[in-house]
């Protein structure tokens, strides 16, 4: 869809014809730039907005019980957020017939986040520019091992274990997270340098081949841990190694749930 007007029209139709029970989209508040809104009344579709800084990845709401209880859903998505929705399809968290994607054409300029510079889904696709995060990655790769370790250990030490990163992430859909597992306890659940290291490491590992680099975890982190760097690095290596980009094709098997007989094993003796 090209404009918010078309989205509103479609949303109205969907609600009036009762093809969906709720439309999730962006609204405009006083002062605030944008915020997620949940529309059940077709009269209220005019509240849907789309302009600069609609950075939320709304896909996270698709799995919230208070949203799911409205039956079939429609969701306003930018091209990038659609990757999250497709990721949820591919991991059996949603059925494609239960979600209507109202995909907005986005020129990736208005939003203006780091991720937009290397957007994979904008229409028309423009040649890849330099992602500022890649610069950060290069800096880290230039560090000696111990310095790298200290860099991340210091990042992770700040973690207050509020789990905002997890709550905002559409792909952290486990009802009970590994960190809440006891007997055995995999990760110490209180803030401590070791537990924090383990938690942030584990979350990054769990997102391998699944993270769509929406950047929400880094944005939500109250202490500014550079989770985006970690995720970006892993997404890049997944693409390099397995030619896989998360959320592009809902039918494609996530890279860790499949294999090739001739996969790289240079690191194995």
């Amino acid at each position: 869809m090209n404009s918010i007007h078309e989205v509103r029209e479609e949303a109205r139709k969907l609600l009036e014809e009762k093809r969906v029970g709720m439309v999730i989209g962006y609204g405009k508040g006083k002062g605030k730039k944008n915020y997620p809104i949940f529309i059940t009344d077709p009269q209220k579709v005019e509240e849907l907005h789309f302009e600069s800084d609609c950075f939320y990845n709304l896909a996270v709401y698709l799995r919230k019980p208070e949203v799911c209880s409205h039956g079939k859903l429609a969701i306003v998505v930018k091209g990038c957020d659609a990757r999250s929705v497709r990721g949820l399809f591919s991991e059996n968290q949603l059925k494609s017939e239960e979600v209507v994607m109202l995909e907005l054409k986005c020129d990736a300029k208005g939003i203006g986040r780091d991720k937009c510079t290397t957007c994979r889904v904008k229409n028309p696709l423009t040649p890849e520019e330099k992602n500022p995060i890649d610069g950060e990655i290069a800096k880290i790769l230039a560090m000696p091992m111990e310095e790298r370790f200290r860099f991340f250990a210091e990042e992770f030490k700040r973690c207050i274990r509020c789990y905002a990163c997890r709550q905002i992430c559409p792909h952290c859909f486990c009802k009970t997270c590994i960190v809440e597992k006891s007997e055995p306890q995999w990760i110490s659940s209180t803030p401590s340098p070791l537990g924090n290291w383990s938690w942030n490491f584990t979350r990054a590992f769990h997102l391998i081949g699944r993270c769509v680099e929406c950047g929400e975890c880094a944005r939500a982190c109250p202490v500014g841990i550079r989770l985006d760097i970690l995720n970006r690095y892993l997404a890049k290596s997944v693409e390099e190694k397995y030619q896989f980009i998360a959320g592009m094709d809902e039918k494609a098997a996530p890279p860790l749930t499949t294999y090739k007989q001739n996969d790289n094993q240079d690191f194995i003796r």
Partner: protein
Amino acid sequence: MARIGVFICWCGENISRTVDVVKVAEAMAGVPGVVTSVEYKYMCSDPGQKIMKESIKNDALDGVVVALCSPLMHEKTFRTAAEEAGLNPFLLEVANIREHCSWVHENKEEATKKAIAITRSTVERVRYNLQLKNITVPITARAMVVGGGIAGIQAALDIANGGHEVVLVERTPSIGGHMAGLSETFPTLDCSQCILTPRMVEVARHPKIKLYSYAEVESVSGFVGNFEVKIRKKARSVDTSSCTGCGICQEKCPQKNIASEFEEGLGKRKAIYVPFPQAVPNKPVIDRKHCLYFTKGKCKICEKVCGPKAIRYEQEDEIVEERIGAIVLATGYETLPATFFPEYGGGRYPDVITGLQFERLASASGPTSGELKRPSDGRRPETVVFLSCAGSRDLAKGISYCSKICCMYVAKHAMLYQHKVHGGKAYVFYMDVRASGKNYDEFVRRAIEQDKAIYVRGRVARVYEKEIEGVKKLVVKGADTLLGEQVEIVADMVVLASAVKPSVGAAALAQKVGTPYDQHHFYSEAHPKLRPVESNTAGIFLAGAAQAPKDIPESVADASAAASKVQILFSRKEMERDPYVSMVNSDRCFGCFSCEAVCPYRAISRKEIKNRSGEVLKVVAEVNAGLCQGCGGCIAICRAKACDLAGYTDQQIFSAIRGFNTTSTYEEEVVKK
């Protein structure tokens, strides 16, 4: 508090020479929860075992660690002994302090410290061992064989003669497979039908074999010992119970120019037909695509002439259900059609035929009654060129493998040709001759030396037609790589030994059954050397060319091997197996089904969790303990930690890790004493 007993073996001097077993025993005695820690010269001897058994009873142990040789040696011995003493055998673990310690280290202090660490880690692990029970699965002693060629026939007869019921499913109207269409068989040149048809009749008459011909497997569910199979009986349009097989319908049917599948397209059949005279069952089927009544709505001559009134135009496909304990897949092969080889004029020139077509031309029951004639004009071919490796070992055709049977049948064809056309010339183009089998090489030598077949080493580049003195001939251009020359042969007929492929639908059937296949769609065996007739799915066995190109003796040997495996499975009412299987906690599972994707055994299925009013709340993974082999792949991939492996739980492993590391200071103290 745990009550753990630790029993340390000297193994004569094998352990005690480098490990101070007394110190190990002392060290373990101080571990919380360890109530007894003793060493003995030969723990595995009767008196040694008695020490453990008595301690289990007297000290009321709820966990045992035996520190001795590798568990591969004596785990079973000590678990049995523990069970005899009333302890669940899975509460006993072996600490390997011989192969992994005393035998590989010389320094006594270091070896003793390592033995303490290994034993301590095992003690920590055993705290979390669960009381497990071997899993028993009931067995339905009834087999299904899919495919009624020689492999399927042999498997069905062997199982049935072993006293078990067999359901034999054949896709075409008759059993017999490719072998029924062969002329003679190598290396003995005995008539194929003469050796096959008695077996076919035996199948038909066997009280333990239920034959579904003109039927296909629709779906398979369940697991080893407990499959539920749906079979689609295709509408034959004939009531087989009242039909007497008199053949009058076939005789009177006016639709007579249909290419016969059995004759490989070289002969004709009617619209109502029995594929060949010795067919089993010897009951006709109406080919609805060609029948005048089905296409044009009139005729019904067969109905009129049928004495017992067995024609059923209104018959529909019928689905029957069978309960089965084991399945043998014997779906066989097909060969690439001549049309696959445009460079050789396949499909364009009627005298370029495949090996299977040549079989029909050479067969006494074939369309020419065994006289060799060109399909185009009926002339006797004075020169025939046989091309082996047509498609096989040819990456350009997408086939990397050797079709294995061609070298032999090409030699046979050259021989049969010479026997039928005296003075004729048989050329064989080959890459190399692979005749490794009993009396096989001798057979090929006979073709060359006695029957004067001319073997030319090299590939044929192309075949084209040329009219010479009013007769259309085939010019074969190729290279003789031994002489390094181009050769050109003017032939009357070209026979392609075209590559063997799995039969159409093999992959689709494998998906229904849930068993793996390779990139060419041949079924994969569980182990290429040690389990060649078993598939990786418990209860599914393989026979014949469905697994790889095979000749008749190999297919028969396979079939008997598979039948024997089936009978081993059926020899007990229940199957017992170790309890190391995956367990799912459905509260934690959130249904991403990564586990399902990585499970090699299709042991994971989807279970709907419903509320009281029947609404589906979520869909979670469920493990079928009958199928699960306990590899643990599902557990490592599970982010939510919703599953775990009995016998190797996360808790046991974490505890073992901790056991190694918490010992450091403690073990040093003991060693220094």
